[in-house]
């Protein structure tokens, strides 16, 4: 599917597509794009697609930009040829692109994250899956037997009651919950911090993608390598896409799970449950003190009731206000 002109412009301005590893000029960060998007909306151009084909002089006068800034935009917009070639390559690998202007862009990210919703998302699998009712499952990469079996229980329960498993698709808790859900023909959405291109080649992942049971998405370049910053940065997407979140294990005051969970508790995107058991790590107890909702182990009812149980317990969570998003 070809991109709309608006999306073409956003991908050119805000993504790494077709650029070298150390690009000069660098694509716009969200912090740079958001004010420009506001300016654009207020200008005679009106929308991002109108930027295509404009010269430095045009950009300067239409958006009242300093020379250097207009030059940078023009350079980024000039790589339409590379964009077309790279998007075709990605599509033939099974990877699609969405921008904040696309109808298929997950509504929840727009609503909950507002301006910090990624301008560009890359993904594979059914693009309607991200945003389906579901539970975000987070936890450590290093897990003991008890958390392993708990993660497996949650994955299976989600499949039974029709909730998608949202996770970071990392080793440990993520992979176990996701894998169990998929084995039971449930659905899952993985939000990757790196290497989307590589991830979709594993035979079990590929067949789940092809069946429509799994979607993998990432706000980073599909061939990006691992970085701690990226791993932290995608955590908020996991929370913001789901209806509820469940922290299975968290270190105290350190690590990605802790950072993501405390951010989510503060932002109140979704009700955050925390596994509450005597053996749970210190982080879990601290998160419960900070407003996490206790999740009992063992789960007191049959797995198929998980959905109802979460809904009832979360009913006290504040409904979230909505406002129209930005490009």
């Amino acid at each position, binding site marked *: 599917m070809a*991109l709309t002109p608006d999306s073409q412009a956003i991908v050119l301005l805000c993504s790494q597509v077709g650029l070298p590893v150390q690009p000069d000029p660098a694509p716009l960060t969200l912090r740079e794009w958001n004010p420009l998007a506001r300016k654009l909306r207020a200008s005679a151009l009106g929308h991002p697609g109108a930027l295509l084909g404009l010269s430095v002089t045009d950009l300067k006068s239409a958006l009242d930009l300093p020379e250097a800034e207009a030059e940078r935009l023009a350079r980024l917009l000039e790589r339409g040829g590379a964009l077309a070639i790279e998007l075709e390559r990605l599509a033939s690998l099974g990877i699609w692109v969405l921008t904040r202007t696309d109808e298929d862009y997950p509504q929840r990210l727009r609503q909950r994250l507002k301006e910090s919703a990624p301008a560009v998302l890359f993904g594979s699998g059914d693009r309607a899956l991200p945003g389906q009712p579901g539970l975000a499952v987070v936890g450590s990469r290093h897990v003991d037997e008890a958390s392993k079996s708990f993660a497996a229980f949650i994955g299976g329960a989600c499949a039974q009651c029709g909730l998608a498993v949202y996770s970071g698709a990392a080793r440990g808790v993520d992979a176990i919950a996701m894998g169990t859900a998929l084995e039971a023909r449930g659905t899952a959405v993985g939000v990757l911090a790196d290497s989307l291109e590589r991830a979709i080649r594993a035979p079990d992942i590929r067949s789940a993608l092809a069946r429509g049971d799994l979607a993998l998405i990432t706000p980073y370049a599909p061939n990006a390598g691992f970085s701690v910053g990226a791993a932290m940065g995608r955590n908020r997407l996991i929370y913001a896409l789901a209806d509820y979140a469940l922290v299975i294990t968290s270190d105290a005051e350190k690590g990605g799970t802790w950072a993501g969970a405390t951010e989510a508790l503060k932002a109140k995107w979704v009700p955050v449950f925390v596994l509450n058991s005597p053996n749970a790590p210190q982080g879990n107890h601290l998160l419960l003190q900070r407003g996490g909702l206790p999740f009992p182990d063992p789960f007191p009812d049959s797995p198929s009731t998980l959905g109802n149980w979460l809904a009832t317990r979360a009913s006290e969570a504040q409904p979230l206000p909505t406002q129209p998003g930005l490009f």
Partner: protein
Amino acid sequence: MRSHALSLLRHMLDPQADFRPGQWEAIDIVAARRERALVVQRTGWGKSLVYFLATKLLREQGAGPTLLISPLLSLMRNQIEMAGRIGVRAVTIHSANREEWDAAEAALAADACDVLLISPERLNNDRFLKSVLPGIAGRVGLFVVDEAHCISDWGHDFRPDYRRIVRILQNLPKGVPVLGTTATANDRVVADVQTQLGPGLTVLRGPLARASLRLQNLQLADQSERLAWLAENLPKFPGSGIIYCLTVADTQRVAKWLQSKDIRAEAYHAGDDAHLDRPALEQALLNNEIKALVATVALGMGFDKPDLGFVIHFQRPGSVVAYYQQVGRAGRAVDRAYAILLSGREDDEIQDYFIESAFPSPRTMNEILDALAQTDGLSLNEILNRVNVTRSMAEKALKLLEVDGAVGIEVAKKTTRYFRTPNPWRPDLERAERVTALRRAELAQMQAYVTHTGCLMEFLARALDDPTAAPCGQCANCKGKGFRAEVSPALVAEAVEFLKRDELILEPRKRWPANLFPELKTVIPPDMQNAPGRALCYYGDAGWGKLVRDGKYVQGHFNDDLVRAAAELIRDRWRPDPPPEWITAIPSRRHPRMVYDLAERLAAMLGLPFIPALVRTGDALEQKAMANSAMQARNVQGTLAVAAGVRPGPVLLVDDIVDSGWTLTLAGWLLRTNGSGAVYPFVLARATARKT
């Protein structure tokens, strides 16, 4: 801008030059308006001039370099020189000039290249995407798509990679101009290209007839007659030219025959890289140092020799459009050039084979996908180990699957691996049937052309929907005279003799397929390999081939003429050194006597002892049923053993027909490991291209 462009043009050509109709219009669309144009003009009209000038103008406006996508692999030197006169620098990146890539990439990164020429496959190449494109920061100033008719399924030339080009152009943001060029698009193809590239495409179309070309069709059924005709008539043609054949074997055979008649001719085809210096051959033709290149269509698009004197077809091409395109290379800058179409008995059979082997079956495609789906990637050899399909058919299937997005490619440690993507794949039977039906219709039109009695140029122009089509007054039909079809009977007899002595060399196999013998290394030690062998002919060909077929399947006995011819070949022309001291043969359970009988008579004629040193230990299926080398090797594995009687001296190893060569390889290896000297394989015939 027009006057500036005109001054550039005059700088490139000469001070009085002017635009031909359509040239400035095309430049204006892409360089000034930055829109899309499709140029349908005959070869030699000056399409390269359009994209060089457009590139120059765009570069002056600060645009990035032009990306020229073309299936032809090298811009001709004179074209690059012409571009150089207005400071347009062109660089080529393709699979055969790896040593120049670093320099090319450096030139691109330094913004010192204005036109980058790539083949369509490059667009999905890792290095191109990761290194070349980012090197120019993705700034493509102009897309030029050469041979743009390939975009359409209705084109005469089906190239899967062009489907990728269409999708790229559909993703291309506004403001990046596109120029498609072709010499051969009828109305249907133009309309289809327009639909696929969007309504913003302007079509510029010119007349296709070429006044200097003298067309003539001659029907000579047997190869021997056509060979004789060439030897008799070639010296009468002006200048140098091209003789087109349908197969590589025919290019070699025709070239060898002409050389034997003291005519300077060389074979030219896409295979056999080690022994063929294609650029040198092209140069020799350009310089008129040879009379003719005897070529497959590998000598094709983009080969530009303005004074080409003739194009002769030894066999009939599959479509009128392909024929027009091939003869269009002649007579661009001379008053008179000839295009002679010889057609013969084998043409239909070869064309049938081409049509039928154009598409892999859905079953083959699915088997390959299933094999890939169970892994995270396989090499081509690993696929052939799992799926019974010929190598070339597997390559075709993988290409189609890759373009369909069902299969991805990764090159790591110099090995290409194919992997399944999550994209769904369903066989597009309708497309395959549509293309096949189109090929049949084209073949029928070509058959009609051969016997057409009206103006031949008009026939070609009409087939391309040229609105200006009219009688040319130049072709043999218009003039009522041309070259005579009759040739001297003595020369025909000579050609028959030549065909009978046109034996083939059997190159020994040097490796076992992976995992065939887990206990052995895959490399066969040199002293366990066969020596190069000989085949008397191709199975079924016009020399001895028919006698072999008759012997094998009708008489059940190879006649004495064949045995005598074999003895002559071995004793007088081949003369293996050191000479064989004994003869043995491949045993057969199906026809136990036939080959032994052949070997015994041959032994008697050569005065050597025949010793049946090999025995069958198991039945193999007919090798014909095995589609690739790995499957064939498996099929013969364990079916042969050595009985008593192996002698230490060199041995002639006889069989009737060789297919994969694995039986001979296995037999030779058994003989060598059991103490024989050098093993010289000899067979009556080599099986020809096989159908799946």
